[in-house]
């Protein structure tokens, strides 16, 4: 047998040894350096979202890092939990939410944060999301919506807009896409926000606000998959797609929506791209219903006699 070449080992010969401080990542301590380089294509919105999450937990919330656990499912976004140096778990396809529910019920002091994709949470795992929202389990769901199944090579997802070209809709997508935020709210989420990857700081702040919220909080991130979605629909590279997000976003508040959730629908025109992406904090229940673990504790009192 000939000597085997390990293809996925990093060639360290070209690496700079002991790089100066200015080359360090600002959240070096929160990343698993040995798991990097990531699998993401250059310019991918998932990296932006991970950075926004790290900024949220360091700058905008006081939750101790020991108590945060990052759970993801399968897909490009599914790998996110592996790069973040906190407690983490990479669950099977679509089952990140039940796993997180189990953790939260066993240890109510832990804050599970789910970072996963639209295919994972809204296609194969849709049932679990609805039930976790209904129970109002204390968790934060960050769904990165890139309108496509990226990891498997660009097949159409339940979020792919009508008419969009993908590998499995060569004549244009026929069925209608989901409005993820509307689904989450309809099923009982008590916090819901949507931002594009272009709006970095508001996104980081919204993630923190969602984590501070006691109950089921939902944050939708509109991301660019320029390699599998943008390329086939003539939307340009990562920068061009983000510029389009900048143009298309419409900031909306709870008052603007006034419980007509159809106002939050994303609009997409074939050949043009995204023409309207409503963003902002869509819902924040001030007088919150009590979250699930607390309800379990309060449900009955044990009489010791």
């Amino acid at each position, binding site marked *: 047998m000939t000597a*085997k070449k390990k293809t996925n080992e990093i060639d360290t010969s070209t690496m700079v040894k002991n790089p100066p401080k200015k080359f360090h990542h600002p959240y070096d301590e929160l990343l698993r350096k040995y*798991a990097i380089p990531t699998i993401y294509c250059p310019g991918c919105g998932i990296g932006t979202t991970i950075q926004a999450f790290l900024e949220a937990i360091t700058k905008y919330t006081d939750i101790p890092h020991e108590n945060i656990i990052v759970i993801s499912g399968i897909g490009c976004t599914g790998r996110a939990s592996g790069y973040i140096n*906190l407690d983490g*778990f990479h*669950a099977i396809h679509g089952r990140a939410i039940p796993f997180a529910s189990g953790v939260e019920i066993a240890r109510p002091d832990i804050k599970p944060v789910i970072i996963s994709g639209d295919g994972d949470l809204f296609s194969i795992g849709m*049932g679990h999301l609805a039930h976790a929202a209904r129970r109002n389990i204390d968790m934060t769901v960050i769904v990165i919506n890139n309108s496509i199944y990226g990891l498997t090579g660009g097949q159409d997802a339940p979020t792919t807009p009508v008419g969009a070209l993908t590998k499995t809709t060569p004549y244009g997508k026929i069925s209608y896409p989901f409005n993820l935020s509307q689904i989450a709210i309809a099923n009982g989420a008590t916090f819901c926000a949507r931002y594009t990857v272009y709006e970095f700081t508001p996104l980081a702040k919204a993630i923190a606000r969602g984590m501070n919220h006691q109950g089921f909080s939902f944050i939708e991130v509109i991301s660019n998959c320029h390699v599998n979605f943008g390329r086939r629909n003539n939307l340009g590279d990562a920068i061009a797609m983000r510029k389009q997000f900048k143009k298309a976003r419409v900031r909306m508040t709870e008052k603007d929506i006034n419980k007509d959730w159809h106002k939050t629908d994303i609009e997409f025109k074939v050949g043009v791209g995204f023409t309207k992406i409503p963003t902002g904090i869509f819902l924040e229940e001030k007088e919150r219903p009590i979250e699930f673990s607390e309800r*379990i504790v309060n449900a009955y009192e*044990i009489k010791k006699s």
Partner: protein
Amino acid sequence: MTIKLQPKVLTGTHFKNGNWAIVEGAIASGIAEFFAYPISPASEIVEYVTYRLPAVGGKAAFIVEDEIASINMCIGASWAGSKVMTATSGPGFSLKQEGLGLAYMTETPLVCVNIQRGGPSTGLPTFSAQGDYMQVQFGSHGDYPAIALTPWSVQECFDLTITAFNISEQVRSPVILLLDGDVGRMMEQIEIPKKEDLVIINRKRPPPGTDKNSFKQFDITGQDDLVPPMAHFGEGYHIFGTGLTHKDSGVPLLDEDLHSELIHRLYKKVEINNHLYPKPEEYYLEDAEVIVIATGISARSALQAVLDAREEGLKAGLLRLITVWPFPKEQIEELAQRAELVVAEMSMGQLIWPVERYARKPCLLVSRIGGTPPSPAMILEGLKKARKK
């Protein structure tokens, strides 16, 4: 609502069914959570546990949205430090297979009860069967070493549930409690021992003073039993678990050698801890010329057949398997050399596959499906036929 605190171990003599005994065994073992989906004939378990568990100070026992959610919630709760159990029947067990694969890969201790019913598909929902035997070992994709125990009485339902939890905690692996519907629902006398007489073993934890930054969740350095100590979420160890092929730190690396090393270690881990699994029970084997091999309710029938055969002058014996996976191959190899083997089971012939493989000769199958175990008369006829060969 105010509920009265109940004792954790109901010491004394009871007249109850197998499903009741499993719940009592699990509560005596110290489960904190229970997640399941209702399915006949396992519904009694979830009905009783939702009444019992809150009253002994358990955290939560409730019905979840589906079978897939229940197994994944169990894995999550186990990683957060709880002892957990779920219960189901054939169709639900099929749905749980991917989750069970994840539990084997991430070395998660948990117990899954499968009260078998007639299949395939919806089959005979309220009837008994022994048709999930192969599914336990080969149901999930890929290679994994299953551990499965089969009780044959209500008393054993209680005892083996505790054993199943002890094995799963010690080996850091899921354990399947494989019952046929008859054993789950038949009523019998059961003796629950005193709390201090029960042996309850908890999982191996990182020793105090372990460096939290360099701790690795799957590191077996210095572990003779090949079982890595388990850290839990929220303790500052920054642990990571994945179903992907992973290094001892838990971080995925898609590498041929690493995968081979990992899967071989999982198999070796289950093999090396062989002394923990209950040995088969022997009846009249010393001078037996023909031996029947059976589990669960079929073994009760087979014991009667052996007694009848002895009365007729036929030197028959019974080997009742308790640990059905890993398969007790040495014993079968040894018995096959000195006697003819008969397998009695409530399926079209699943247990006979490994028996014939290790006996290295054809064995006789006494099979009956449709909800009734093979009768003593059927097995006796089989014994006579095998002897004549």
